[in-house]
């Protein structure tokens, strides 16, 4: 319950201003969210899903909220009204409730039945401010039956200001639809981000959800994926490269509700310096979800004595005709491989970098979107080299 008061107070005093600049749809959900937020408070570390991140501490500083945004540009399509907030339940999650209470705008990506988008949609969020700033974002992706869409979201920050972002993303994958959502964060050490993704996949639908965390301060990404129709399928990929005091916490829940669904999950971490990483992935197979096929894997490199990694892959199975497995490893670079490279005249630093890169490239290789895959290879290398203007970056950075 620690210090939710500043947010409650902000909401009470600025309610009118918030309302006047936002869609009626968003305003209609605020009261319920505020009530839930007051009841829930910030989750302590005793709340199972938040045990690896101190939420109250992240929300304790006094951030500014930019209230005089331009009034909502256009009316939301009716379909948004029927879906908004239906997956992101404010009753169970404080961050979702807080976001719903204070949200100012929503981006809606709607793909009608059997429509295909040739090119991916890219959303770029760049944070720039002269004061510490809080931002509450909302994204709604709806792909009707047979539709196809790829969405890429990139998070950046300019200037050394403190930022706090909450984002709630709801993804509806219709029957036989195909949605790929790529979330890439490359900001700086004073950015704190909480991203809650809620997705639902209907029969025969496919969802790819990837989370890449390069530079950031504190990132907590939660993904709840419900496979509700027969033969639905989900691929979750994640990669985090952390250093300094960075903290990255990925928490996923894949719920197999309908029979014959498939899920694959691969998360990799390279945890360096004093940074910390956490991965908790829960696969829940309901009793009706016979013929479930699920594989979950998490592999981690811990590079220094100060770095810390928590990993917690969980299987919870109530059906019997299933094939589920999970695996998790924590280790360090292979000494033989290092020796081999050094023997061949590669410096130790370079050899280490190459091995880390090879480790991360398994996740990159699984990315279906070709252009992004190539771009990420560059970004990941750049991240490992940790340099702003080396030759390599200039060459590839145009």
């Amino acid at each position, binding site marked *: 319950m620690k210090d939710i008061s500043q947010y409650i107070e902000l909401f009470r005093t600025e309610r009118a201003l918030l309302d006047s600049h936002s869609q009626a749809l968003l305003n209609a959900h605020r009261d319920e969210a505020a009530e839930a937020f007051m009841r829930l408070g910030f989750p302590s570390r005793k709340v199972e899903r938040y045990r690896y991140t101190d939420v109250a501490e992240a929300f304790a500083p006094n951030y500014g909220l930019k209230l005089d945004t331009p009034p909502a540009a256009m009316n939301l399509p009716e379909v948004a009204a029927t879906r908004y907030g239906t997956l992101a339940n404010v009753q169970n999650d404080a961050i979702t409730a807080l976001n719903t209470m204070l949200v100012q705008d929503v981006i809606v990506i709607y793909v009608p039945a059997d429509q295909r988008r040739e090119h991916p949609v890219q959303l770029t969020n760049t944070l720039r401010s002269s004061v510490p700033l809080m931002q509450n974002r909302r994204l709604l992706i709806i792909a009707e039956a047979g539709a196809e869409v790829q969405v890429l979201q990139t998070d950046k920050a300019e200037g050394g200001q403190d930022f706090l972002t909450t984002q709630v993303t709801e993804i509806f994958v219709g029957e036989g639809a195909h949605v790929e959502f790529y979330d890439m964060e490359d900001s700086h050490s004073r950015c704190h981000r909480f991203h809650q993704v809620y997705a639902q996949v209907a029969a025969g639908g496919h969802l790819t959800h990837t989370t890449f965390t390069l530079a950031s301060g504190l990132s907590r990404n939660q993904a709840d994926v419900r496979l509700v129709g027969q033969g639905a399928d989900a691929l979750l990929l994640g990669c985090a490269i952390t250093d300094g005091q960075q903290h990255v916490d990925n928490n996923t829940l894949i719920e197999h509700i309908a029979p014959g669904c498939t899920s694959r999950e691969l998360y990799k971490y390279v945890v360096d310096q004093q940074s910390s990483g956490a991965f908790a992935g829960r696969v829940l197979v309901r009793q009706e979800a016979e013929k479930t096929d699920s594989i979950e894997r998490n592999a*981690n490199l811990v590079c220094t004595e100060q770095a810390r990694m928590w990993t917690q892959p969980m299987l*919870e199975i109530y*059906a*019997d005709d299933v094939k589920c*497995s999970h*695996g998790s*490893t924590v280790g360090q670079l292979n000494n033989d491989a290092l020796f081999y490279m050094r023997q061949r005249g590669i410096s130790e630093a370079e050899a280490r970098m190459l091995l880390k890169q090879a480790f991360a490239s398994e996740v990159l290789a699984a990315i279906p979107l070709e252009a992004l895959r190539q771009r990420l290879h560059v970004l990941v290398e750049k991240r490992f080299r940790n340099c702003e203007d080396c030759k390599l970056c200039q060459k590839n950075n145009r």
Partner: protein
Amino acid sequence: MSSDQETTNAFVRSVAERTYEYGFTTTVETEVIDRGLTEDTVRLISEKKGEPEWLLDFRLKAFRYWLTLEQPTWGHLKMPEIDYQAISYYADPTAKKKQGPKSLDEIDPELMKTFDKLGIPLEERLALSGTAVDAVMDSVSVKTTFREKLAEQGIIFCSISEAVREHPDLVRKYLGSVVPYRDNFFAALNSAVFSDGSFVYIPKGVRCPMELSTYFRINAQGTGQFERTLIVCDEDAYVSYLEGCTAPMRDENQLHAAIVEIVVENRAEVKYSTVQNWYPGDKDGKGGVLNLVTKRGLLRGVNSKLSWTQVETGSAITWKYPSCVLAGEGSQAEFYSVAVTNNFQQADTGTKMIHLAPRTSSTIISKGISAGRSQNSYRGLVRVAPKAEGARNYSSCDSLLLSSTCGAHTFPYMDIQNPTAVVEHEATTSKISEDQLFYCQQRGIPQEEAVGLIVNGYAKDVLNKLPMEFAVEAQKLLSVSLEGTVG
């Protein structure tokens, strides 16, 4: 079909037709103290056992701490509410005799019969060669066999009450050193009201010549059993310890909240094996023992070794995490477990491996088998502390599902704080392979027997770690527990 197979088939059939065979009760005059738990109860227990002042203080501290706690709810269990005031905390079936029985002639023949029926003869000449037994019924140790023979080598094997009287220094030194009374809710409760259990001390350099074994039996109605076992294995010593348990069939839940503490010194080795066969409740989930225990080993010494092997087939609810604290450099810990749940049983069991010292290694092999409407969870923690250079852990947890109404869950926690640690975890969940079943049936093995064979094969990794006599019993139990799960 080879005769070997025929024997196996007949064997499987014979046991499959049995239900819980230890569900009888013994009529023996038992002194049971009034139900309820207050400071006076704690004092009364201590007085009945004629304990020294320091132990009473220990109990009272634990009791006062317990009062500040709430029962934990984090387990994947639907726990019936336990009314701690409706339980009697002390039941003594030997009370008729003023002093505890000194020789066999003084033991109530009913008690002798009970243990005979359980396959635990208290007469040394009848005992399985090579096993010394401490038999505990309700709150009191009835008899410890082969004590004199073991004493020749300086080995102390007796009930913990006797140890408090005869070796107070040892008990005082080690009691609560591995599981402090502040450890958890049930540990605090046990520390306040524990009654009997075994005490083992193996002196330096001694290899214990026989298996030591404790057999726990709950008999009296409306009582709980709160046993406490303390095993100390001094430098270069070795001991293999077995624990068995049964309870009568009753409609009410019976509480069993035990603590087992093990201390392993330099280069010593302890093997601890359990076949847990408490009454699991009837097929509608009525009754059964609530098994809520804290077991932990402290590997204090350099290159010390501890191995936990458990076969869990009984109990309505199992909440148990035999753990190892690897504090000595180069120490090794192992955990092998088979947990079977059927009908309405629930198990939330696993282990904790806490690596504190450099070059420590641990292995976890866990096999869960769920049938009926049961829920079976593996919950484990592997922690590598910053100083545990080169720590190594391998965990493998497999679950086998035998019905569409049961659940199998894995909750492994890993917390790694050292870059040189190598930690691996694997888990799989599946049902019995149709191909394997078909293959067996094709060769004339009835379905139920085929399932028994496959399950025994699946659990073999763990059963192989058990001492011989125990392995046979465990194999039988596996088949009994799974009776009626096919179809």
